């Protein structure tokens, strides 16, 4: 039965009706009829499910005090990362703020490396020295702790893309909270002035920490706030909407028209960080409603099942595989040794030979190498 389904759906493909997308200063809009193959659907499902399970595991480890410090979870927003990545290349560049676990995964990091970074172990993706907010992979510039500070960096990276003429672009992500930072507007201006190939993406999850967008922003039309930069507003819970809009935005950038702004309307199930239970400024009913009506994973799952693109059993099998991967990674992240003390001083400067770093008194000297 399974085989037949495969054959059929490979030929059949699904037509998904997209939600309407709002545009700003654009003559055209992303396509409303899109095609998703079975393979793509299964792939998106697996990635989103991995991200979801990874975050839930992180939540658990945090509550067991195995993960410490600041930790911002991405569950609920999975369709954003997966949709964006599906429409750009791995050779394109991406930078985000501190809610970075999902993007680290889509950019090529492994669950093992991410979990071990969360627990601060040697095998972590930043050698255990960055932690939750600071993860990096090739063409993924982090992992940035200061609200909004990554946005000008993204424009700089986009300049390099343009300068080198490799037809690459930079995806520059920030949240609805950061959207009110002054440097965002400085960057809009520079990016438009110099026609940089940058896609500004505001992941609007409705709350900047504990403040709802209505209470924080004079205009909540984040896709219009670039003023002279064309914009798109789309449903960030639907991976196909995000993919199609990003594809449109990427074409816009690559054709030399300069920056474009996207607002993805999404939702985070967890609080802002692990120290925020996330229910003092919104109701449990609100969270429950989003979960039941527009969960990104359920949306994709239902779409695939109703179009006969996959069977329940086959998706369950993926779930089991994902769960196992997370368990293995979690095992690794809790047993891998911590970085050695020598690492404390390494990578302060680029230096060769090693330099001495003064400890708490003049007699305790440590070595720093890079």
């Amino acid at each position, binding site marked *: 039965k399974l085989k037949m389904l495969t054959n059929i759906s490979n030929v059949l493909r699904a037509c998904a009706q997209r939600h309407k997308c709002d545009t700003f200063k654009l003559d055209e809009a992303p396509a409303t009829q899109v095609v998703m193959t079975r393979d793509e659907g299964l792939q998106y499902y697996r990635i989103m499910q991995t991200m979801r399970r990874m975050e839930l595991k992180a939540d658990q480890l945090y509550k067991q005090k195995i993960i410490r410090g600041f930790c911002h979870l991405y569950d609920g927003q999975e369709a954003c990362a997966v949709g964006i990545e599906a429409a750009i290349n791995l050779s394109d560049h991406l930078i985000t703020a501190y809610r970075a676990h999902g993007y680290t995964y889509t950019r090529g990091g492994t669950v093992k490396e991410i979990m071990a970074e969360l627990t601060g172990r040697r095998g972590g993706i930043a050698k*255990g020295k960055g932690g939750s907010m600071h993860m990096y992979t090739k063409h993924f510039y982090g992992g940035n702790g200061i609200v909004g*500070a990554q946005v*000008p*960096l993204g424009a700089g990276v986009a300049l*390099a893309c343009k300068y080198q003429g490799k037809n690459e672009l930079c995806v520059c992500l920030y949240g609805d909270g950061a959207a009110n930072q002054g440097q965002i507007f*400085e960057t809009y201006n520079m990016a438009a002035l110099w026609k940089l190939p940058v896609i500004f993406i505001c992941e609007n999850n409705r709350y900047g920490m504990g403040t709802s967008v209505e209470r924080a922003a004079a205009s909540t039309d984040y896709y219009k706030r670039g003023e002279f930069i064309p914009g798109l507003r789309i449903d960030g819970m639907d991976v196909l909407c995000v993919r199609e809009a990003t594809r449109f935005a990427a074409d816009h950038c690559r054709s030399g028209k300069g920056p474009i702004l996207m607002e993805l309307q999404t939702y985070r199930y967890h609080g802002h960080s692990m120290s925020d239970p996330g229910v003092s400024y919104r109701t449990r009913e609100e969270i429950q409603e989003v979960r039941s009506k527009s969960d990104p994973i359920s949306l994709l799952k239902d779409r695939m099942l109703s179009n006969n693109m996959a069977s329940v059993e086959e998706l369950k099998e993926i779930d089991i595989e994902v769960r196992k991967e997370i368990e293995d990674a979690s095992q690794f992240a809790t047993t891998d040794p911590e970085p050695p003390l020598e690492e404390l001083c390494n990578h302060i*400067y*680029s230096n060769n030979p090693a*330099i001495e770093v003064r400890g708490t008194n003049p007699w305790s000297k440590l070595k720093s190498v890079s």
Partner: protein
Amino acid sequence: ITIMAAAARFFVRGAHPKLSFSGVCASAQRSLGAGLLKLSPSCASRTKTHKRHAAHFTFQPDPVPTQYGPTQKMNLFQSVTSALDNTLASDPTAVIFGEDVAFGGVFRCTVGLRDKYGKDRVFNTPLCEQGIVGFGIGVAVAGATAIAEIQFADYIYPAFDQIVNEAAKYRYRSGNMFDCGNLTIRAPWGCVGHGSLYHSQSPEAFFAHCPGLKIVIPRGPVQAKGLLLSCISDKNPCIFFEPKILYRAAVEQVPVDAYTIPLSQAEVLQEGSDVTLVAWGTQIHVMKEVANMAQEKLGVSCEVIDLQTILPWDIDTVCKSVAKTGRLLISHEAPVTGGFAAEISSTVQEECFLNLEAPISRVCGYDTPFPHIFEPFYIPDKWKCLEAIKKMINY
């Protein structure tokens, strides 16, 4: 006594009605640079007729360097231009950006570079310091050589977050996978005789508290070029502060070709046996004069050290000198509390406690905002420094 003397000098100068406003009178931050440009010819002509009030220092040029090939007469801004010119010529990834740099910059440091290398390599930014530095970090992390200009060191604070939180920690927090070592930030620095609150500051100590950065300040054109080229090629984010009062006042024979002067190495400019004088930037020229005065008036032999790199600083050279002389005077224009002199003093007393003959002395700016008309009182001039030497000798 010191204050009385300063007051007397002030009144003497105050007798000339125009003096305290000579040069530039603009108060709006952006018009100061433009004012400098437009007014400079008239300033020059005025200097000939009216004697402009004496600067608090006399620039003392270095001997002509012989090891780096042919030299040319350059002032400090020209030597900076020359360093940038060498970089743009030899490094195809190098870009220069900042407020008005395409037109040469308010202090003329980038004159002619846009025309020579193209407007895609030397370009103006909007007035947005935070954006400039963040953008620079991005350009650098993507592999290009980024040279950002902040129009005045006083305007660097909006970019403080980008420098301290983003640039300085990029290498560390990514476990060495990413860095912005290709970034150099240049900024005019220090007092200028009439700069008032927002065109005179020396913010090196703010950044000295931040591992991951390098901070460099030259004393003249020859050092400026060699140290700037070192900063540009160094694989760490560097802040290069240029003493703006020396841009025109300091003239030396500067090598035309590229050369580097090592960072984190202090230079002993004059050897001595009784007191070590440590300073950087403009203050070096005050210290040299103080050393001569101490010799003439007190028979005291001073060793003068130009620290050059504020972070990471050359502890060895300073401590070796203090071990020999037993006395240390540190002087900078920035306010005394929490200034970099405090760090030097603390380290030296830890390392050289038994060698010290007198408490370490700091002669610095007062703990006030940089004053306008009171600048002559505020500046750690040669008289204040000489007084401190007397106290140390008589301790």
